[in-house]
């Protein structure tokens, strides 16, 4: 975990990014602004005015941070979190699918890893395909999956729309997150040294005892590291799963819908919200990790 000492550098870098962002806004919004001056026959605008104008356009190409944060504020603090206008509402829709997908994906990842570590046949037949599975552009397939999954759930099994969409999103989410968990867990479950395994053998320990008393505890650090990657992937999966697929709520739907009507500020505020969510999720996994380590008596870093 990062200590407090990292706060200053992070804030400095963030400040640098903000400066870049404002400069970028001048460059990107400038041409349109000049166009607007030309149309309105305005000439000789002072540079400061020009800058201020590019930073406060109605429909900017690149909205400025203060515009984005105003939008964020308007759509979180000023509206009830239960109405579609609220970004929190959408964040929750995305988050719930993310969490479901993450739990599903991690569970699957751990299960696969356990099978792979315990059976050479599984190892040989699954491992290459697990790697290959990640070369399939799942994001490109998302519409197909959501539509197929959705149709199968609603059509064949009669699941109502919302849960069906939720399940489909969770599946994409799980598909993206299981891979890092499997790879990390296989590494982790294989991390006990020979001597530690030999020790268990001298006790004539059963496979279950070796697993719970040795393999599992030694795999935990690997598990948490890969879960941090996995949870971020889950979020991407959930957002993508609700983007081009007729979803009506969630950050992905918000992003896309903003773009149909040229609402760049809305797009960016949804993007920022997604990043905040990613940060929160990764930090949350980190907290759980710390908690577990303390209980396991790990050496403080």
């Amino acid at each position, binding site marked *: 975990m990062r200590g407090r000492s990292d706060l200053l550098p992070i804030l400095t870098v963030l400040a640098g990014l903000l400066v870049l962002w404002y400069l970028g806004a001048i460059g990107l919004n400038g041409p349109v602004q000049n166009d607007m001056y030309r*149309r309105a026959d305005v000439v000789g605008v002072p540079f400061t005015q020009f800058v201020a104008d590019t930073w406060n356009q109605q429909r900017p190409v690149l909205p400025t941070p203060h515009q984005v944060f105003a939008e964020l504020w308007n759509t979180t603090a000023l509206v009830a979190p239960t109405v579609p206008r609220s970004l929190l509402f959408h964040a929750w829709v995305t988050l719930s699918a993310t969490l479901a997908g993450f739990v599903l994906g991690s569970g699957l990842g751990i299960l696969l890893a356990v099978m792979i570590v315990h059976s050479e046949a599984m190892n040989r037949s699954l491992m290459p395909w697990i790697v290959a599975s990640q070369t399939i552009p799942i994001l490109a397939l998302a519409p197909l999956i959501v539509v*197929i999954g959705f149709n199968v759930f609603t*059509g064949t099994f009669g699941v109502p729309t919302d849960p069906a969409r939720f399940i489909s999103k969770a599946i994409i989410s799980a598909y993206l997150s299981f891979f890092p968990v499997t790879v990390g867990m296989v590494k982790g479950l294989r991390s006990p040294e020979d001597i530690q395994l030999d020790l268990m053998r001298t006790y004539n320990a059963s496979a279950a005892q070796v697993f719970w008393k040795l393999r599992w505890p030694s795999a935990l650090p690997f598990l948490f590291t890969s879960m941090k990657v996995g949870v971020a992937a889950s979020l991407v999966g959930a957002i993508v799963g609700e983007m081009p*697929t*007729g979803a009506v709520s969630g950050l992905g739907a918000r992003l896309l*819908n903003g773009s149909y009507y040229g609402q760049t500020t809305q797009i960016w505020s949804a993007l920022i919200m997604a990043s905040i969510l990613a940060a929160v999720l990764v930090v949350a996994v980190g907290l759980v990790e710390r908690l577990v380590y303390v209980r396991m008596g790990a050496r403080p870093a």
Partner: protein
Amino acid sequence: QDSVVLQLKWVAQGQFAGYYVAQAKGFYEEEGLNVEIKPGGPDIAPEQVIAGGGADVITTWMAAGLAARERGVPLVNIAQPFKNSGLLLTCRKDMGVETTEDFPGKTLGVWFFGNEYPFYAWMAKLGYSTEGGADGVEVLKQAFNVDPLIQGQAACISTMTYNEYGQVLRAGLSEDELTVFNYRDEGVGMLEDGLYVLEENLDDPAFVDKMTRFVRASMKGWAYTAENPEEAAQIVLDNDMTGAMMLEDQVYQVGEINKLVDGSTGALDPADYQQTVDTLLSAVSPDNPAITKEPEGAFTTVVTDGL
């Protein structure tokens, strides 16, 4: 109450105001229907949804509907609330497009995903290659916004009268800076936003009756929309679960949509159907295999006859 699932071609917006109004105003309920309206999106193929059992009835463009029919999804048009088409090719005069003769060598933005058939038919009619080069046109797959035109990356882009065209205007390009081609005026207009069901269901009289009631209520919704555009826009807004829409956009959209629906009883005019089919068949090519032969039984009037 009978339940009906309607899959839209696009997101909840003024384009589908009639259905939302019919639902909000209880017209469906009056007909003993419980209608669920599923919004679509750029990568939702309603044809696929209905094939998978996810909907009872869908709205789609006729070209896409016929293409799906040829690929084994037996869709049948049961009603056509949209009399006119809203598809435009919008060009910038300052990039040198005033007439269709100016197209060669230019870059044109086109929507794909089943929306490209009218464009290819038109180019075939004009005799322009779509592979680029000096006497051909350069085709771009255009995303869901009007940036390429504003930024001058394309000389022309696809727009709908009721949405993107308005965005172009709002972005500051005025009407006299633009050349607008209406597909209908170019003789390649195709029917948009009809209602389609699976052929086998029509064998069931109960289903036909259900659809009759559905279309009747929907047309009532469209009529109400024509009378009360502002209220209809508000109803659409209430159904937008993304919370992304602005009322002003939707008022504009409903206004434009009303022009397209104007004059329709809901029944499909066989002449319009034939024009769409002829246009498609005139443009058959390996790149554009919408349909390759005259479709059979692709529309029926059993539903609208009962109105």
